[in-house]
């Protein structure tokens, strides 16, 4: 069996940034397993711009952003296995991968999970009707158009207003297709505000909130969909049904962290994020296995993926060098208006700033965000608005960490 200090599963933005960070912290024996031919993950098909504003101070396309990090990895001579799929992961950090040369087994000192996420499919939604060709998840359509160079259809309806759905509404329009409607079952969009403006409003594409696709029509190729308004319990209101002729339905109805390997290794999964339960080092509850990027929690900005991956990379390096502190930890939890908090555990001995990432449950106006531990308010900030589609962050400084006497809750107060 081969031995490596750090094995990184996934060569997307998370895996690449984690590799660079681990290298910069003194580890040289790093390998990345990537199932695609070229590293960069899903960024390779995101040819629109808007990447890197926070992290790199410039506005790049997806492939450009990936190239920055691929370049850093290449410059450091970090070994990448392309076209290589990891099939098994054990709790004692044996990684089994497969490529056209055979099966590779590695005993790693530390493993970083960076497998990304997948899209929720039509089947998972139980939309009634027929099962014709022409129904794609938005990301699959994006790949077919941007990487393979094919048109997926001429007249489309998009279900779900997540960012990929919004981006694809614009992309289809640019390729000469008509986007008849974007339906969102919730009373608000799950996408970034800038995407609603730049991808829908600029192209006169209607966004129907509180709407869903009630039925799918067509035998061979999609012929149309019935859309309808939903009530507050997201049940279809029959009287509002109307038919829209279209040959394509794109689904942008949520992303699911891809944690099959994580489960195999016996790592505890947070039912809300769909990713591993981690501490502030992004270490899971299986020693020496770390997680970052969309496999841990679905991000809206790749910049934050890179930040998170750097934490995982630095921590894995420290783990290999036996420098990761072992100390008392407390749990974090969601209070009023908060859907989840990540990391789910933090150590109280921290000597560095610790960021708590979280998402709100619904759109809020002006709110006060509080981090409390027992009777102590560790930190509080005011935001003029907070929406589920944009991840929030609040920082705990070392002196605040010292105030922790029991589990931590992040909570909102409307102002």
């Amino acid at each position, binding site marked *: 069996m081969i031995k490596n200090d750090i094995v990184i599963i996934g060569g997307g933005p998370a895996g690449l940034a984690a590799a660079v960070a681990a290298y910069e912290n003194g580890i040289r024996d790093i390998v990345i397993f990537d*199932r695609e031919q070229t590293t960069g993950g899903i960024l390779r098909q995101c040819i629109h711009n808007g990447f890197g504003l926070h992290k790199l101070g410039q506005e790049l396309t997806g492939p450009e952003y990936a190239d920055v990090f691929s370049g850093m990895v290449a410059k450091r001579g970090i070994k990448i296995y392309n*076209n290589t*799929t990891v*099939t098994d992961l054990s709790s004692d950090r044996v990684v*089994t991968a*497969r*490529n*056209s*040369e*055979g*099966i590779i*087994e590695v005993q790693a000192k530390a493993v970083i999970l960076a497998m990304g996420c*997948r*899209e929720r*499919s*039509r*089947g*998972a939604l*139980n939309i*009634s*009707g*027929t*099962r*014709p*060709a*022409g129904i794609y*998840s938005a*990301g*699959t359509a994006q*790949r*077919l*158009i941007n*990487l*393979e*160079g*094919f*048109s*997926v*259809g*001429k007249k489309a309806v998009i279900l779900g207003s997540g960012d990929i759905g919004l981006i694809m509404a614009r992309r289809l329009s640019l*390729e000469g297709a008509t986007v008849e409607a974007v339906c969102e079952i919730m009373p608000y969009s799950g996408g970034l505000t800038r995407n609603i403006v730049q991808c829908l409003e600029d192209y006169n594409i209607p966004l129907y909130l509180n709407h869903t696709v*009630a*039925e*799918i029509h067509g*035998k*061979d*190729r999609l012929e149309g969909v019935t859309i309808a308004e939903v009530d507050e319990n997201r049940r*279809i209101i029959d009287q509002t049904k109307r038919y829209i002729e279209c*040959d394509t339905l794109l689904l942008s109805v949520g992303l*699911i962290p891809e944690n*099959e390997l994580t489960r195999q290794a016996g790592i505890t999964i947070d039912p809300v994020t769909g990713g591993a339960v981690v501490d502030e080092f992004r270490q899971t509850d299986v020693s020496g296995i770390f997680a970052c990027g969309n496999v841990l929690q679905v991000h809206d900005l790749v910049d934050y993926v890179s930040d998170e991956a750097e934490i995982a990379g630095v921590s894995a390096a420290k783990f290999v060098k036996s420098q990761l502190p072992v100390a008392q930890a407390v749990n974090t939890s969601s209070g009023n208006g908060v859907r989840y908090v990540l990391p789910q555990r933090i150590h109280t001995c921290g000597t560095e700033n610790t960021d708590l990432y979280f998402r709100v449950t619904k759109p809020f106006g002006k709110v006060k965000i509080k981090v409390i531990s027992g009777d102590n308010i560790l930190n509080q900030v005011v935001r003029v608005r907070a929406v589920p589609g944009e991840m929030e962050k609040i920082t705990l400084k070392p002196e605040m960490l010292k105030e922790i006497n029991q589990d931590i809750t992040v909570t909102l107060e409307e102002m």
Partner: protein
Amino acid sequence: MYDVLIIGAGVIGGMLARELSKYELSVCILEKENDVACGASKANSGIVHGGYDPEPGTLKAQLNTAGIQKLYDTARELNVPIKNNGSMVCAFSEAENGFLEELLNRGNQNGISGLSIISGDEARELEPELSKEVTKALLVPNAGIVCPYELTIAAIGNAMDNAVDLSLNFEVTEIVRDEECFVVSGADMRKFEGKFLINCAGAYSDKIAKLAGDGTFEIIPRCGEYILLDKEEGGLVGHTVFQVPTKEGKGILVTPTVDGNLLTGPTAVAVDTPESTNTTVSGLNKVIELAQKSVPAVDFRQTITSFCGVRASEKNGDFIIEGSKKVEGLINVAAIDSPGLTSAVAIAEYTVEILKSLGIKLELKKNWNGKRTDPHFFRNMNNEEKNEFIKKNPEYGKIVCRCEGVSEGEIRRVIRQNPPAFDVDGVKRRTRSGMGRCQGGFCMPTVIKILAQEHNISMTEVTKRGSGSVLLKGKL
């Protein structure tokens, strides 16, 4: 001219073709779709039924009982996964308890051994997730599970390996019986001639019989909706869990599949045409409600897909397998609804006997081979064997479908093997690529590419399942 033409490439036509391939006969299967197993054979419960349900004395009872062991044996010979997991029929009230007694009696009369009635607690000991409301259960040890389309594909593949022909995309529009033979014409002007014509057209078998001049029966299509769940849920039950049957069918079941998923359904609703395979809100809700009646812990958030199949039922409720009284040389193998899959091999043998009685000459082939190479030989290897195999066949090292772990080599194999896959759904049914939790989101573009290469066509010509189901609308 063929000795025998079979119309319909479902499990019945397929098993019959395989049975006939044992003899020195020329046989051709005509199928209107782009692949085999496109009707009820791709969308049913996949159950080896225990034989307690059919009315004693019926053809259904006879062939169900005769078919059980034959199906296990044939599936194993064809290297199709089949599992004798046993089933239980659950009662939820005193009245239903009584009905279990009736089923037990029927089973005994049908010659089924090993049936027993157990208490609710005993049933829950066997199946801890079973509802507390279950009062008694009929335990059926001989029941099993099998993948119906995989079985059909294997039977037809094996028949083709033994010189049976398959003609796809052939929709029968005209059947003429002249003095010597049948002349069967298709929508595309192709013609096939055969001395004997066997109608295995499933939900369309009444229409085919009418085209041949036999209007003696009518198929009442009844649809059944199903919900398939993730492998995470697959271990919830070990047995196939039924509720007491009703007039419409065997009720909603909860069962593991041979591939490790959990399957729930079907509903039973009469529909206007066999094309009515659309799912409905009310149907899917009914599946959820009744599945949770048996097994409350079924988590439908783990749904992978829902689908609908159409049963080819007839008003008298029995199979119709006989030489046509109107048209000489025509054999109808019709009204094959449940337990059609269980009875398939027995039906094939029974049909061959009818052919004999009509005077066909049967001479066994000397070199007939009933075995089929396991298309899943690779996934069943251990890591060491896989490693060796990949070194000689690098395409098996490249994983295309990450959810089900299917490699490029396995996909190319089923496009080359009998019966070849021509479309994305065909690859899916043969390899499980696209069958997993992402439902083809990641692998479909690659599968399209491989299909285009293997069939030497453009990617825009690759379809989901033949005819107009194109996936890509041109090059950008």
